[in-house]
């Protein structure tokens, strides 16, 4: 069957694929049809009637965003009738609620407007509103969420947020209540957003065409025309979501999900909003503990002092955060291995399960999977975006099998739910073996194998810290199974490839490289002389003998290895403050002070681990 369709749009011959809509065919040919409710990442809905076009042999005007194309179709997208209809629609939309632009954060002049409705108003020459709203009705503003606000007065009921919640986040919180002019976007059974099942992933905020949804942190700090967008990687967890960082004058204003990366626009509240939360005081210069208080010191003196102490120390131990680039981790590992010749190094946190269970899976495999098995781990807590990708797969009919001792947010969807003990019990007592023999108890692995059996694209997600029996059992699943390790700790996989893992360390001197991580209530390992290199003040910097400044996640360049094993670029978004030095530079200078040097080839080799 030929899947090319020939049609004529505005007198131009256009080729498109079967199954495309008029809007998609036009967009493919570079012909713009204005839209409001339509979003390329969401299912077409046809709510706003802005995309109406003339189609020959069709009665009236038809919405381009939902109308399927067929062979020989003749479409006109910009006739006087079409323009008049769009103007009428705009007049009606403006009359519905409080679309008084001057009060709105999305408003702007001409092309600098962030509001798709306002831009269309300008484009279609609306110099007044035929139906004056008069602003008698007060529309509610829901500010019950911590990070962003919903002003129903700005809402045009395009349902982009509802569809984003259903199709991208797969959280199904948003919906519509009432009918006609009383229709309102609502969460669950009309609960305040903050008290609903909303997880504040902010996907709705990212797709909202007007100022109805706006983010508290970046509102009024600069519209799209005044900001810089940079594609970067989130260092929050091992999923490694692609982000668009929105900066202005060396300030990070907002973070959005990248549409092109596997997270497909989705982020979690931590990655989108919490990264912008105020941090404890920044450490701007080296500090040295003297006479019971911290005194500022220049880098030279501070590094000389550290070099002296380390040279005199019997054993130097090191602790490093997994939320650093592979390059920073490599500099750290190299400094300990080659300069200090110490193997007392450990990660602050983070865990990597065995990686050789079978064919590796990608995040896209999870969304496309028809059967997902979750063994140990809790993506709803530690890899939140992955949790939403799993729910997206479930919406598309995937089956879910859970073998876990921990309660997870995915439990209600599990078709098979076993304890970890069920999968490892066959190695237990002779009595258990007897029960198996007589089919009194079916092995968990057998049940898992049977459940996975009919699946065509099964994906197995497995957590850390399971027994070797469990991991061994997981190797014996059908060949079609692809495996995705639930790595804890952002770049823990990059660290593992450098031989760094979470473990207690001890030495008479200690070097802690935190970056902008802060120890979460963990005690600082005991030592006679402690150096902490960190971006911000914490209990550990307070207890240190020497504190060195560090760049934050947004000031680093390098790479990061996510749980799929993909090497992702970490891009500097902001300039570090003047006296903050790169980790690499810190360690190489320190090595020089100790009469050694970091071998650059080895470093490059280590850092480039694929």
């Amino acid at each position, binding site marked *: 069957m030929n899947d090319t369709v020939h049609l004529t749009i505005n007198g131009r011959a256009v080729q498109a694929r079967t199954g495309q809509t008029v809007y998609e065919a036009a967009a493919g040919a570079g012909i713009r049809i204005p839209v409001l409710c339509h979003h390329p990442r969401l299912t077409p809905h046809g709510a706003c009637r802005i995309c109406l076009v003339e189609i020959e042999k069709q009665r009236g005007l038809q919405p381009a965003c939902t109308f399927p194309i067929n062979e020989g179709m003749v479409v006109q997208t910009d006739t006087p009738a079409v323009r008049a209809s769009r103007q009428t629609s705009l007049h009606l939309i403006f009359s519905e609620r409080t679309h*008084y*632009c*001057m009060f709105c954060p999305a408003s702007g*002049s001409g092309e600098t407007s962030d509001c798709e409705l306002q831009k269309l108003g*300008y484009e279609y020459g609306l110099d*007044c509103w035929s139906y004056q709203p*008069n*602003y008698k009705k007060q529309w509610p503003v829901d500010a019950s969420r911590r990070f962003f606000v919903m002003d129903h007065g700005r809402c045009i009921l395009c349902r982009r947020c509802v569809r984003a919640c259903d199709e991208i986040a797969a959280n199904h919180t948003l919906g519509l209540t009432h009918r006609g002019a009383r229709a309102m976007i609502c969460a669950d059974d009309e609960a305040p957003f903050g008290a609903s099942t909303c997880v504040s992933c902010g996907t709705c905020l990212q797709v909202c065409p007007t100022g109805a949804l706006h983010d508290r942190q970046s509102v009024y700090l600069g519209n799209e025309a005044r900001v810089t967008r940079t594609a970067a990687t989130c260092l929050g967890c091992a999923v490694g979501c692609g982000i668009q960082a929105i900066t202005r004058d060396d300030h990070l204003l907002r973070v959005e999900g990248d549409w092109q990366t596997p997270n497909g626009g989705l982020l979690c509240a931590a990655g989108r909003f919490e990264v912008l939360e105020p941090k404890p005081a920044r450490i701007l210069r080296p500090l040295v503990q003297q006479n019971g208080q911290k005194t500022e010191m220049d880098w030279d003196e501070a590094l000389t002092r550290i070099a002296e102490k380390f040279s005199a120390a019997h054993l130097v131990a090191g602790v490093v955060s997994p939320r650093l680039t592979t390059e920073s981790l490599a500099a750290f590992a190299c400094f300990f291995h080659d300069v200090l010749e110490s193997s007392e190094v450990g990660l602050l946190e983070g865990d990597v399960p065995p990686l050789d269970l079978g064919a590796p899976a990608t995040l896209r495999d999870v969304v496309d999977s028809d059967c997902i098995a979750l063994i140990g781990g809790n993506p709803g807590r530690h890899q939140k975006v992955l949790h939403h990708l799993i729910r997206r797969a479930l919406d598309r009919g995937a089956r879910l099998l859970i073998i876990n001792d921990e309660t997870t947010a995915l439990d209600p969807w599990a078709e098979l739910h076993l304890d970890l003990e069920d999968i490892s019990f066959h190695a237990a007592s002779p009595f258990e073996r007897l029960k198996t023999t007589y089919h009194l108890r079916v092995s968990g692995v057998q049940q898992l194998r049977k459940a996975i059996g009919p699946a065509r694209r099964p994906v197995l997600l497995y957590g850390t810290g399971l027994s070797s029996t469990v991991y061994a059992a997981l190797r014996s699943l059908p060949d079609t199974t692809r495996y995705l390790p639930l790595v804890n700790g952002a770049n823990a996989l990059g660290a593992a490839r450098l031989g760094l893992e979470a473990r207690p360390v001890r030495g008479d001197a200690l070097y802690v490289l935190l970056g902008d991580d802060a120890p979460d209530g963990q005690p600082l390992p005991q030592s006679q002389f402690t150096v902490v290199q960190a971006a911000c003040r914490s209990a550990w910097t307070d207890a240190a003998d020497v504190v060195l400044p560090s760049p934050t996640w947004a000031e680093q360049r390098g790479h990061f290895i996510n749980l799929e094993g993909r090497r992702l670029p970490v891009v500097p978004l902001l300039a570090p403050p003047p006296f903050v030095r790169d980790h690499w530079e810190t360690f190489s200078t320190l090595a020089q002070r100790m009469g050694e040097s970091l071998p650059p080839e080895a470093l490059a080799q280590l850092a480039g681990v694929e």
Partner: protein
Amino acid sequence: MSNKATIASDWLAGCAGCHMSLLDMDERLVTLLEHVSLQATPITDLKHPPAAGVDVGILEGCVNNSATERVARQMRARSKVLVALGDCAVFGGVPTLRNGVCLRAALRRAYVETESTAEGHVPGDPELATMQDARALDQVVKVDVYVPGCPPSADTIVYALTELAAGRKPVLTGKHLDWH
């Protein structure tokens, strides 16, 4: 009398910002005055449009009480073309914020409950204008030309007045159409 177009302007419930923007046209006012004749404005000595009428009447601000309504109706009656200048005249603007609360509550808040007021009372003199809901100009009288903006830029006002002086109805597009 020359064949210059005659213009009168006045302000209703507004902030005078649109008239400030009108003055912002600087030396272009001299060129404009070769084509138009200003008969009355709130910022010149003659305040009221002449009874004989003008070609173009310009109103800034929205209608919010019996006094502004009277001014609006008089200007409409005395102009051939009525221009709504600025967001308040075109859309209702900032004064419409009070439409969401009842008039009595708005008056109490303004005259009695404000933190800086001691022993305030709501003015009740019968000679005072009667409060109404704040409305865009075209809710009260017919408007011929809309020039939105808060305020409309001096460029936009020059463009609109030049077009009107030449006997054309101004069509605002591009940078002239801005409600920001």
